[in-house]
């Protein structure tokens, strides 16, 4: 590891350490906001691991997130919680493998629609199973896990995602994905097994989303298909990632923080117009900052230079 990388690594570790202190200062509103931030940071960053380099826009986040949540919801009275998180990870990985193998030959808008439909399909199946075989429409997740613990779990997961992302970006797999995003025909012609590379990243991304859902289930206490598999989660993750920028590992975080804060305000002030405002913000972001906030931040020094130089 070079000196610059070691410096970056220490800085990131310090930032994580500082952020992890949050529960010692507040266990009310700010911690709750911190959990939301950590959750979306995990989801948006892991989404970007796959969708960033390949440009395949996946709307399946909710499918994996909800699956993880339901694994915990369904097994909370039967198995210890850590085992459930592990099962959620495995279930997410298996689901991602199946979906990946069937969808990686389709691209563009067909892939987007398929992933959106997948979340909806699973939601309908879960609803049907619940209404047919049980009396309730949801599941209670009653544990003694505190919000502070959930926050720390999510921060640990986020650290893992960053570590995995850093390792992928410096590996042959990461390079393969960048080539695929540039030109899939060329990728195949220089010996890249494009389907395998895409499926592998889709599995990583889906597994993380599934674990994230499992970690959040105790916080929601009551899980229902409509909220666990809500397409809103998928859309928000895409918007945050695009707002932040998908060309850098730290890009999505630049979108998660402002968007989550903005969302707090919007949801409180305009509870009936949230979908409308979500759509409008999506259009504005794609139109005005196509490279995201990370792109702006990176270009800012260059623009300054050219102004001073020219």
């Amino acid at each position, binding site marked *: 590891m070079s000196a610059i990388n070691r410096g970056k690594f220490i800085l990131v570790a310090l930032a994580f350490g500082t952020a992890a202190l949050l529960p010692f200062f507040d266990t009310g509103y700010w911690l709750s906001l911190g959990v939301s931030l950590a959750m979306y940071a995990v989801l948006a960053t892991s989404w970007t691991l796959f969708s960033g380099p390949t440009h395949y826009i996946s709307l399946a986040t909710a499918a994996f997130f909800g699956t993880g949540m339901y694994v915990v919801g369904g097994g909370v009275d039967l198995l210890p919680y850590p085992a459930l998180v592990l099962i959620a990870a495995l279930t997410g990985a298996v689901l991602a493998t199946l979906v990946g193998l069937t969808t990686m030959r389709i691209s563009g808008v067909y892939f987007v629609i398929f992933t959106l439909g997948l979340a909806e399909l699973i939601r309908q199946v879960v609803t049907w199973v619940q209404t047919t075989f049980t009396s309730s429409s949801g599941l209670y997740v009653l544990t003694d896990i505190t919000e502070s613990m959930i926050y720390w779990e999510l921060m640990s997961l986020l650290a893992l995602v960053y570590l995995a992302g850093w390792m992928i970006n410096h590996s042959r797999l990461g390079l393969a994905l960048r080539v695929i*995003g*540039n*030109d899939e025909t060329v990728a195949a012609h220089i010996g*890249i*097994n494009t389907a395998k590379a895409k499926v592998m990243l889709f599995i990583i991304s889906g597994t993380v989303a599934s674990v994230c859902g499992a970690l959040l289930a105790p916080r929601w206490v009551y899980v229902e298909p409509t909220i666990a598999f809500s397409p809103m989660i998928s859309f928000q993750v895409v918007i945050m990632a695009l707002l932040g920028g998908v060309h850098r590992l730290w890009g999505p975080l630049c979108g998660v923080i402002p968007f989550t804060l903005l969302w707090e305000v919007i949801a409180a002030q305009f509870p009936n117009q949230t979908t409308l405002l979500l759509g409008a913000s999506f259009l504005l972001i794609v139109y005005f900052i196509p490279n995201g906030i990370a792109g702006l931040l990176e270009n800012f020094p260059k623009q300054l230079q050219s102004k001073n130089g020219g």
Partner: protein
Amino acid sequence: MVLNVDGMTKSFGGIRAVDALSFELVPGEILGLIGPNGSGKTTVINVLSGALKANAGRIQLLNRDIGQLSTHEIARCGLARTFQIVRILPAMTVLENVAVGGVFGHGRYWGAALDRRAKDLLQRLGVRHGADTPATALTYIDQKRVELARALISDPKVLLLDEWLAGLNPVELGIGISLIRDLRAEGRAIIIVEHVMDAIRSLCDRCVVMNGGQKIAEGTPGTVLADRAVISAYLGDEYGDA
């Protein structure tokens, strides 16, 4: 024999783009695949590289059947190509564009060895721009050179050049021709699809002439270019009969 094509047939709907084509290629040989526009040359290249699957026939690369392999598997067997319309990776630098060719394919390199190979090839092909320049900033000719470097870095045994010499000025053409000769001297087998007749005459050991998907002539450039069927395919019957 490095490549053996036997009865290759490829149809698009009712159109037979390639019709029972057979030819062979030995190491250190340059084979010209020529014929009028629409005669099926690029389709042959696409079938060989695995971009398209043949409907019938047998293709052997280094005594291995590759007809049913996918594109990346064929690349790993030692076949590399350039594209008729140059395909550069737009979001990558010049050096990256070359280096990626040597990571996943036939010859595999990484780290410093990969960088060194990529830089050597850029120098050899005469790309003078900084390796960190975005590839999109290059001229068309330099992009073609980068594309060839990307194919060469994996040390392919068979190289397919689809109109790689098209659009070069006379000086560049001379350099391009001597470069392809050097590649042959290294023992590579090369198939060139070309319309530049000077290049075909001075480079090719043998030519396969196609028309309407079929092979209408095969032999040295001098022989086939004087062939009556070839002349009428290019210029119309009145010239061929004369």
